[in-house]
């Protein structure tokens, strides 16, 4: 199920909230938790029932790993014949084996569903073989919930996390606001909140803040990102016509779309979390204001970078084993980050480019002092790297790059604007058809520029979380939010042109 769907907005969310707080008010805490797990699984399995088995199986497996580690831990505690000195090493090997087994199985599942075909494609290419691809449909959010559970298994292996009950653990992994597209919430952030019974009471303060943030997120996703997607997708389809300006505009529009899409979704997740009185960590912190790539990666997809830092970078030695190893560790992290985003060489190169830039930032003895120039350089580099992110193949990157170095006219820029054929423009379009048919292209151009200006202003202004923190409660704000919500809701359904009659 998607946040931006009628079912979620009109039925699912109100139903979960009402029953969750009602059950908790009746002190039926366990039933409330089971109910929340059930609803989260419905949310997850809405599009494909069979994937329910994957997430439930994955949760049970990781729970069992933790359970067996717990048994070993208990034995240490109960067995009084083991001295303090012995207890530090007692069972260490078994725990390590269990932890490694957990890591292997989690990564194995992820590999099978996400990377198997990519792996086979490369084997076929390198060894000139013809092994069949499995064309496996990627289970929704598998990268997110796998990493979330990996962090728990590693923490259990390191004995820095407690063993949780099955219901607690399932509540944490399946909690629907963060299940499909993150943020990657850690057990230490969410489970203590679940255990806090004070948070089970309806809190109008948090509920209001949550509503505001979720509505703003929905608006970012539906009204802005989805509108920009019309231009980006059509422009990409016609990428062979790119010239310098249209290629730049294409990437610029895409990085706006990407930010408003992903951060909008995260705002909805955080907002819904707040409605439940639970804090979900922020994932974006004005990333396009970064003045270096190192800075950018502290602001973009924060929870993923936090994961890689804690579970890859630091275990590899972090920055404590000399510059060479530090740079190596950075490159490993970013290559893995690239692969995490998708099974394609484009993502690997994207990771590599980001890794190189961050490594450069780490060793550059003379960073640019002028803030504007450093911002411009960073933003331009972000633009360049995201070209690899959007294009589906390396070949397509070449086509866009070719366009980038083809400074012939701006005709395609005007064509690109026309892809933004949104219903809001319909009346103006029809009116112009009657009074000034030649101006219709200008109408699209004006609308496109307007949307891009709005995006820029929004990027320069406060993000949704900070707007919530402002705590300004004016009538205008209430009306504005209501307009954003209803405008987003009416944008969820369309009227398609049936192409049969396309003579």
């Amino acid at each position, binding site marked *: 199920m998607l946040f931006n769907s009628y079912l979620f907005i009109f039925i699912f969310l109100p139903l979960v909230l009402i029953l969750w707080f009602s059950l908790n008010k009746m002190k039926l805490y366990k039933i409330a938790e089971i109910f929340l797990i059930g609803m989260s699984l419905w949310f997850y399995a809405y599009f494909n029932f069979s994937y329910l088995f994957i997430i439930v199986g994955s949760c049970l497996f990781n729970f069992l790993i933790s359970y067996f580690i717990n048994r070993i831990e208990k034995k240490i505690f109960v067995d009084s014949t083991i001295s303090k000195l012995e207890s530090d090493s007692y069972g260490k090997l078994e725990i390590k084996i269990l932890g490694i087994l957990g890591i292997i199985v989690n990564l194995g599942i992820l590999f099978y569903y996400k990377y198997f075909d990519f792996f086979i494609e490369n084997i076929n290419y390198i060894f000139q073989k013809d092994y069949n691809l499995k064309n496996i449909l990627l289970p929704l959010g598998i990268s997110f919930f796998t990493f979330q559970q990996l962090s728990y298994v590693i923490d259990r292996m390191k004995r820095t996390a407690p063993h949780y009950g099955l219901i607690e653990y399932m509540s944490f992994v399946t909690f629907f606001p963060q299940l499909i597209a993150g943020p990657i919430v850690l057990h230490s952030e969410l489970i203590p909140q679940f255990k806090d019974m004070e948070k089970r009471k309806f809190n109008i303060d948090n509920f209001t803040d949550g509503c505001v943030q979720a509505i703003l997120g929905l608006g970012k996703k539906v009204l802005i990102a989805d509108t920009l997607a019309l231009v980006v997708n059509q422009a990409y389809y016609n990428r062979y016509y790119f010239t310098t300006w249209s290629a730049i505009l294409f990437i610029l529009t895409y990085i706006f779309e990407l930010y408003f899409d992903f951060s909008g979704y995260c705002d909805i997740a955080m907002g819904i979390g707040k409605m439940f009185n639970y804090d979900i960590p922020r994932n974006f912190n004005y990333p396009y204001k970064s003045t270096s790539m190192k800075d950018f990666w502290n602001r973009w997809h924060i929870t993923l970078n936090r994961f890689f830092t804690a579970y890859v970078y630091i275990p590899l030695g972090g920055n404590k084993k000399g510059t060479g190893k530090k740079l190596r560790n950075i490159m490993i992290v970013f290559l893995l980050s690239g692969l995490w985003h998708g099974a394609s060489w484009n993502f690997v190169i994207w990771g590599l480019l980001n890794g190189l830039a961050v490594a450069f930032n780490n060793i550059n003895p003379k960073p640019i002092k002028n803030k504007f120039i450093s911002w411009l350089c960073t933003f331009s580099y972000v633009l360049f790297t995201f070209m690899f992110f959007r294009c589906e193949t390396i070949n397509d990157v070449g086509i866009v790059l070719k366009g980038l170095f083809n400074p012939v006219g701006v005709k395609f820029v005007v064509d690109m604007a026309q892809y933004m054929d949104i219903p809001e423009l319909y009346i103006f379009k029809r009116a112009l058809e009657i009074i000034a048919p030649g101006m219709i292209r200008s109408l699209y151009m004006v609308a496109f520029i307007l949307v891009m200006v709005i995006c820029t202003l929004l990027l320069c202004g406060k993000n949704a979380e900070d707007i919530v923190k402002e705590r300004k409660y004016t009538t205008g704000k209430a009306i504005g*939010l209501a307009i954003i919500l209803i405008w987003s809701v009416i944008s969820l359904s369309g009227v398609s042109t049936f192409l049969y009659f396309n003579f």
Partner: protein
Amino acid sequence: MINTNKIIFLKKLIVSILIIALSVAGIVFLFDPFFHYHKPIKPLKAVLTQAEYQVIGTLRTFDYDSLIAGSSMAENYNNKWFDEVFDCTTIKAVKPGANTSDLVYLLEAAYEEKNIKNIFYTLDVAALTTTVQEHYVNEGMPLYLYNKNPLDDVKYLFNKHVLFEDIPYMIANSFIGDYDEGESFNWAKYKEFGKLHYSPTEEKQSDKTKNEYEYYVDFNLSKLENLVKSHPETNYIFMVPPYSCLWWYESYMCGTLEQDFYAIEQAFERLLPLENVEIHYFQNMEEIVSDLSLYMDTIHYNEDVNRKLVDLISTNEYRVTFENKDALLENMKILADKYINVYAKKYISNL
């Protein structure tokens, strides 16, 4: 401590949401451009241009006693032609590319609401030979308009396209220009005839065997037969439209000529015995079939042909009877040969 500012703000937010939501839903309900809830409120006109979205609503809410049923071949009839000739009130039950199950679904939906005097049914050969399809439901169709579940009406009541495009379009056509309600779903006025976009099949394919199509023809005709039998109060006037000579050529080249003849023959066999059925067969109208200036592709002709067919139905000139059906089919086979080898080949040789 409870923050009263926030409570007031939340109340304002909820009230604002409710006011705007009810206003949007109210506007859509009032104008109802897909006629899901009611027929047009005067002085608005029934502006009908999107069959997939509007037909089902019109069948449920409009006043009528007769229907024009069919695929795109039926969309260019003006309802008023039938009203004048047959003294009835007609609307359309059409779907572009409709197969038999689609049309049966629409007609059954109409029977749920009305007593129907006449059904003018365009009998497409392709719809008789097409793959079996039990239900109307198609992927991507706006099913919220078809089912009777009020909950999924949110997709209609809260729909940006409906609000910003369909309602203004309805208003504009009601008050500006001279929109003719009889021309519902007409597409011919936007098309150019006589300039065909056609590339002939170059290699003759092997003829389909009876086993390959018999089941489909039987399935589709059974559906129609059952419908007709269960509504003896309705006159079913079936019309077999005059596709161009190029369609006959393609039928021959694709190896479906025998199949198409079989479908028509079976239609005669199974429908003619039913008392409430008339069949008018127009494929032997040589002067039309051979005149490609009347067509925009291999099958779709202009509105003048539609008008002519209506008049010919009333004169019974092309009506099929038990007595003439065999001779008609025999003659048609000779004529088909002429369509293919004379008219079509001449046209193709000039391409």
